[in-house]
């Protein structure tokens, strides 16, 4: 099987879906000849032309709003938000329109679209090129929120997202775009939106993570294994709607939960996972539900020492897991 980077997998998914369905199109800033600032759309302009690979005006609100309109008409837009940080101008269209259209029209109108957005820090991007934005959307019924952690899932989940009849926010861990490599079959495959994945079985504690943090969690688990600590790692993958069952079953097995994300701690996505466990796995718990997350400051700072202070990494995960295992 060929090895691909995460960003290649994303590109391949779009290519295949555009080839499969002529209603699929790509729209965003610099997605055309430039091939996207992260090169996620490279080659698509040459292959499918400017009518299906549209360099939008520099305006996220209308990238999303126009895509919604096209979706209402029966198209399948893939809207790229250049950096997740720049999704906020489009908030109204996402939250008030895309998410609520099906419900508010009693199913008469639907918005089959994908919003792709690279997210996350550790790349010297400072406050505005590093944000994790999932918690703004994992609270909005009508949306689906998906974050892949490896090339296989990225391709399979993105293809599923394009075929999903509902609006999907597809967040890509940009630090992993070229860093994370993995085997991706040439044959067509899909990864279903919905189920979390047990990436690694273990018995001492469960680590819940996604995106880049899943990558570090796997590395930490390996380290811990050498120390005799058996960590189960769950890749949440589809953050919303959340896969309660996989989460609760894992905690039942291990009795301990460590939830990891790079977004700010307070109000972050981890709170929901902790709350689910605290309510529905109460009698299974052998220790407090532990969250490890970014600190509650307004952003990831640029200067290197400060950036490292902010970021969750392999070491910090291993430390937290060690303490929890020893509880």
């Amino acid at each position, binding site marked *: 099987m060929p090895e691909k980077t995460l960003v290649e997998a994303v590109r391949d998914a779009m290519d295949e879906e555009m080839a499969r369905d002529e209603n699929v*199109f790509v729209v965003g800033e610099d997605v055309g000849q430039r091939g996207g600032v992260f090169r996620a759309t490279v080659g698509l302009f040459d292959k499918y032309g400017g*009518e*299906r690979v549209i360099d*939008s*005006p520099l*305006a996220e*609100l*209308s990238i*999303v*709003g*126009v*895509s*919604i*309109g*096209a*979706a*209402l*008409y*029966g*198209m399948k*837009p893939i809207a790229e938000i250049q950096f997740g940080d720049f999704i906020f101008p489009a908030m*109204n*269209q996402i939250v*008030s*329109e895309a998410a*609520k*259209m*099906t*419900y*508010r*029209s*009693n*199913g*008469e*109108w*639907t918005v*089959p679209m994908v919003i792709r957005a690279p997210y996350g820090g550790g790349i010297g991007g400072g406050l505005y090129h590093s944000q994790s934005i999932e918690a703004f959307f994992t609270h909005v*019924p*009508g949306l*689906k929120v998906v974050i892949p952690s490896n090339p296989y899932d990225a391709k399979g989940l993105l293809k599923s997202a394009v075929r999903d*009849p*509902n609006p999907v926010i597809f967040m890509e861990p940009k630090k992993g775009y070229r860093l994370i490599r993995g085997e991706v079959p040439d044959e067509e495959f899909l990864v279903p939106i919905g189920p979390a994945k047990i990436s690694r079985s273990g018995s001492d504690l469960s680590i819940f993570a996604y995106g880049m943090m899943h990558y570090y969690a796997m590395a930490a688990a390996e380290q811990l294994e050498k120390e005799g600590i058996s960590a189960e790692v769950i890749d949440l993958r589809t953050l919303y709607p959340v896969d309660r069952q996989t989460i609760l079953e894992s905690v039942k097995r291990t009795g301990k939960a460590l939830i990891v994300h790079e977004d700010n701690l307070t109000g972050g996505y981890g709170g929901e996972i902790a709350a689910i466990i605290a309510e529905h796995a109460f009698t299974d718990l052998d220790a407090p539900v532990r969250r490890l997350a970014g600190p509650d400051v307004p952003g990831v700072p640029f200067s290197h020492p400060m950036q490292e202070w902010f970021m969750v990494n392999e070491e910090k995960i291993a430390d937290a897991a060690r303490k929890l295992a020893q509880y």
Partner: protein
Amino acid sequence: MGLSSEIKKEMYWMMVLSRKLDERAWILHRQGKIAFHISGIGHEAAQVGAAYALKRGYDWVTPYYRDLALMVCLGLTPEEFMLSLMGKVGEPSSGSRQMPSHFGLRRANAVSHSAPVATQAPHAAGIGLAIKMKKEDKVVLTTIGEGSTSQGEWYEAVNWAAIHHLPVIFLVENNQYAISVPPEKQMAVPSSADKACGLGLPGETVDGTDVFAVYETIHRVIEKARSGGGPALIEARMYRITPHSSDDDDRTYRSKEEVDENKKKDPILLARTRLIEEGIITEQEADEMDKKAKDMVTEAVKRSEEAAYPNAEEASYPVYVEEVQHA
């Protein structure tokens, strides 16, 4: 101008029927039978003129809450409107999930409208984009109040349509108020149509109390757009004869004299006088139309009162769909 007497009469009928529906809504509100009404009284000429310029059921519309007469022309029945006022089963836009006047009618290509003003404008641009991509000869009409053109959302939508030369007609219904706020506090140009010059599309103002003038103008720009001539921005000027909604008390910000003065330009009176002058209808026929409309409305109220409320549990869906609704 090419409108047959038959059609003119029909247009007048649509205005009358809408007015009677609207007036009855106010009465129902006073009787405590409904909780909320937002009125289109004074807007009928603009909306009926615009509707008749469309190929109804073929072209697309993204309407706004004041468009009762437009929706009636698109086939919204008196009973359906009454069901929406009462929040009953059978309401077609939302299954009574939304407040009244949050229009939407799938069978007529009229997209579900929400409450945050201006969100419908980017949808229209997106529909226009899809029409262009599919090389069809449809157009899309989107309506909005003059106050709501202050939203960046509207600007971005018009900008898209202008750049991509999309078959979108932006109709601004300028009724001199955004709740209590006059146009001078919304814009520094005399007319919303003046905004066109900064966006690179043609703009025009038309007397929104003259149903045939509106028809003529909108028909012209629609047919131009249909044949690839690009978008247009039309402002129809009228006066909001009623308070903003049943929740509003307009005496806090305008005088009775001002309102009374403007009632002289009631578009239905003007159309009636004109059609009688032109010998298309007689006084008696006009009176009969009034009566017929009233009777239809009474019947619709009766049936709606008999209709059931939705079951509480219906509120639990549809959050997601399994299949796309196709255009």
